[in-house]
């Protein structure tokens, strides 16, 4: 009897050890900005157990300024990152072998907003005006726009606030539709006081937020990558359908990360995200359209932001395609 018992204990010990070995480190995800409604789908997917349901153990790293999601991806400090298409292309151009596994925002949320009071009503009115722009990737489109229309503007650096615009240093500013545009409205600007320039209206549409992994990570974990995108999209679907719950959850994340925030702003953001996610005809949500991709590549090559030829099929793995 004793022998049998010892064998049983030993066997149990082996199984337990195996089980422990089987448990892998969670998949890390880093968004390219602070945890706001811009990333509600990820937060919902995690908090509501959607990742778990898809067999994924996900850890959301807190994003924010001074924490480049693509740098972290390149340095393998994260497994999966969210980033703009234009940013990712530039990394790829610098031989960081990252690939897009899902495209969330299909239309540029980045836009220029001008004061009507300064006589700006059409694109040509921008000539000679003072324009505040964020640096690097955020000014690729504005620069391309000014070049396209032969506009000379006086550019100003834009920081985290729009005070430069509010304090009348500049006449035009850059905003994200889902974020700063609403902040301007909630600083007292009425829609009628502003002229809006959206880049898709000038054939400069850049799909923005997408999901990126390194190629070798994808090759090792194709199912994980696809499951992650599908689970995230499911999270988004839930978020769009449950605004209040989502906004409250996002508020929790923001408060925890010590960011000033209010519900109305997050709600606005969530609603705008829904619009920005809408795919073109024949395209599925979460997919990157080749024509959009080519348009971005063309603009980036023209501006010299990328030099290599990066093929769509090398760069993109559809979440709905076969591995």
């Amino acid at each position, binding site marked *: 009897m004793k022998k049998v018992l010892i064998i049983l204990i030993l066997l149990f010990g082996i199984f337990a050890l195996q089980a422990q070995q089987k448990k892998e480190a969670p998949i890390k995800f880093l968004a390219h900005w602070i945890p706001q409604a811009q990333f509600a789908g990820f937060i919902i997917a995690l908090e509501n157990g959607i990742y778990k349901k898809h067999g994924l153990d996900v850890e959301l790293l807190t994003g924010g300024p001074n924490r480049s999601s693509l740098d972290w991806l390149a340095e393998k400090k994260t497994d999966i990152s969210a980033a703009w298409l234009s940013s990712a292309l530039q990394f790829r151009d610098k031989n960081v072998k990252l690939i897009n596994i899902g495209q969330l925002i299909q239309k540029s949320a980045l836009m220029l907003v001008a004061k009507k009071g300064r006589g700006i009503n059409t694109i040509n009115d921008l000539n000679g005006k003072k324009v505040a722009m964020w640096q690097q990737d955020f000014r690729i489109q504005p620069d391309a726009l000014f070049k396209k229309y032969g506009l000379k503007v006086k550019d100003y650096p834009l920081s985290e606030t729009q*005070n*430069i615009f509010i*304090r009348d*240093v500049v006449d035009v500013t850059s905003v994200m539709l889902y974020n700063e545009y609403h902040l301007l409205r909630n*600083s*007292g600007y009425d829609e009628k006081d502003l002229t809006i320039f959206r880049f898709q209206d000038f054939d400069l549409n850049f799909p923005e937020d997408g999901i990126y992994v390194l190629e070798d990570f994808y090759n090792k974990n194709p199912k994980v990558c696809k499951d992650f995108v599908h689970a995230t999209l499911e999270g988004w679907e839930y978020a769009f359908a449950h605004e209040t719950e989502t906004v409250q959850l996002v508020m929790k994340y923001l408060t925890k990360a010590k960011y*000033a925030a*209010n519900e*109305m702003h997050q709600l606005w953001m969530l609603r705008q995200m829904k619009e920005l996610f809408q795919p073109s005809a024949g395209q599925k949500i979460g997919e990157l359209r080749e024509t959009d991709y080519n348009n971005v590549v063309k603009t980036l090559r023209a501006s010299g932001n990328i030099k290599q030829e990066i093929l769509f099929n090398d760069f993109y793995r559809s979440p709905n395609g076969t591995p």
Partner: protein
Amino acid sequence: MVRLRNSLAIKLVVSILLVSGAIFLFIFGSNFSQSRDILLKNVRLNAKDISLATVNKIEIILTNVEKIPYTLAYHLEHSNLSKDELIKLLTNVTASSAEITGVTIAFEPGAFPGEKSEFAPYVYKSDGVLKTVFLKPPENNYRLKDWYLIPKELQKAMWSEPYYNVDNNSKILATFSVPLYKIIGGKRVCIGIVSAEIDLHWLEQIVKNVKLYQNGYAFLISHDGTFVTHPEKDFIMNETIFSVAEKYNDLNVRKYGQAALKGKSDFIFLNKFLSKKNIWLYYVPLVTNDWSLGVVIPDDELMADLNALTKYILLYNVIGAFLLIIAITILANRITRPLTKLAAATDEIAAGNFEVAIPEMHSKDEVSHLAASFNFMKISLRQYIDNLMETTAAKQKMESELKIAHEIQMGILPKIFPPFPDRSEFDIYAVIEPAKEVGGDFYDFFLLENSYLYFAIGDVSGKGVPASLFMAVTKTLIKATTTIDLPLNEIIFKVNNDLCRENDSSMFVTIFFARVNIKTGEVDFVNAGHNLPYLVSQNGEIQKIKKTGDIAVGILNDYPYQLGKITLAEKDKLYLYTDGITEAQNIKDELYSDKRLEEFLKTQLNSSAKELVLNSVKEVKRFSDVAPQSDDITSFVLNWIKPVESD
């Protein structure tokens, strides 16, 4: 019974209540609105005072802080400090000021001698210890920061928006930045920013101390509308006045925010502010940093006293209205109850019951006067009706007596025609159509000794019973006096004297009295003032029997009447009548007249006595048509057919 809504009491209550209610509402409304205006005016002044005092307190502190960067900038502009001297200066300044938590002097790249790139020493207090760091990109790209960029671009000293301390989020800071200039190549160029940073915790304390009424409070919004202080902690730094307006979908709050950020000041009413109470808001700008202070006074608290007063006034008025209703009802009942009784009594009287008692009134008002009048009316009415009944009875009696008298009168006239059916020599017919009353016409005829036919027609002056009696007497006297051997004028003479005697009523009678000798046709007659009879001859001759010039009987005693004579030819007719024929009137007040009578008689040459009499009456009636008959119509015809040989 009177329907309820028609009742005087209800009408009085309704109309008095309506009028007094309208008056009350007007007074109450204007009083309320004036009280409210006064109250609001005072509150506005009060809120203004408190707001300005608060703003003043804040601005004194802010202005004190402003002095430091200004002084530093001035000093730096006019001196050339080394790096160590600069840091020493910053350290001293930061240490010496209680309010200031840190001071930065940030230069444009290469602007500070000896530094090729960005140079920005920042001295700050950390848990009471002074620390020095050098802000540098990429960790701190200060040249992009609002506190640096905006004053530099605008070339104007200014306060930043409030922000959280990077190290300790519980602290809200604000920075006052002053552009730093240097003369380079004769030009004044901005080479950096001197800024002082302060912890805003004292601000919260000052604003918190603003109390108006029980739950009034104040809050502060920054230049972009962000709440810097607010009793609702979550609002601070998270919400702007516009995000709150958006949350509660309140356009008025948004409008207020826009006005406030434009540096305006006002006292406004906001309905359900933040979905809670109605409030009054006084807002005033902080000129120093373009922020805005708002002082909130809950409307219900502001209006509490006025509302309480209003409630009491309303309550008193409701009570007053009830008292008014009761008083009016009592008064109305006091008026209407006797009126109702009076009405019931009147109904009884109208139904003929004069025995009903008119209710007695003890009051001395119009109603009792009315009741007294009613009573008097009842009595008068009763007397009148009694009188009327008596009169009616008397009249009825008299009428029946008159009727009898008339019948008697008619009864004494010969009425059977032909009266002498066995006599073929003559024919007689007569008729009296009496007027309404008993009249005084008469006719008579009689035969004496078979050869003399006496006949008479008369008309007594006046009408009625006296006339009829006088006629009866006259007729009787004539017949009684007549003897065959007495001439007719003698007979009338006697009758006249008899009638004149004891004729106190001075009545008289016209008489045509005649006697025809049936055998010869000779006629004796006396005409005592009577209408002249007509002699209608067979040959168509119509002639009046001439006057004897005598007066009516009963006027003058011993009057000598004359005797007239005519002789009738064969088939001559004597037509006798009273003035009822010739003086008959039609509706045009025309008389029938002798002329019309004569014309008529000409058409009757071949008529029998009866035909002539009846036709003449018919003719007169036709003439009169609907005009009333005013006098007796009497017509008498003697038709002397032929003389008969006597034995």
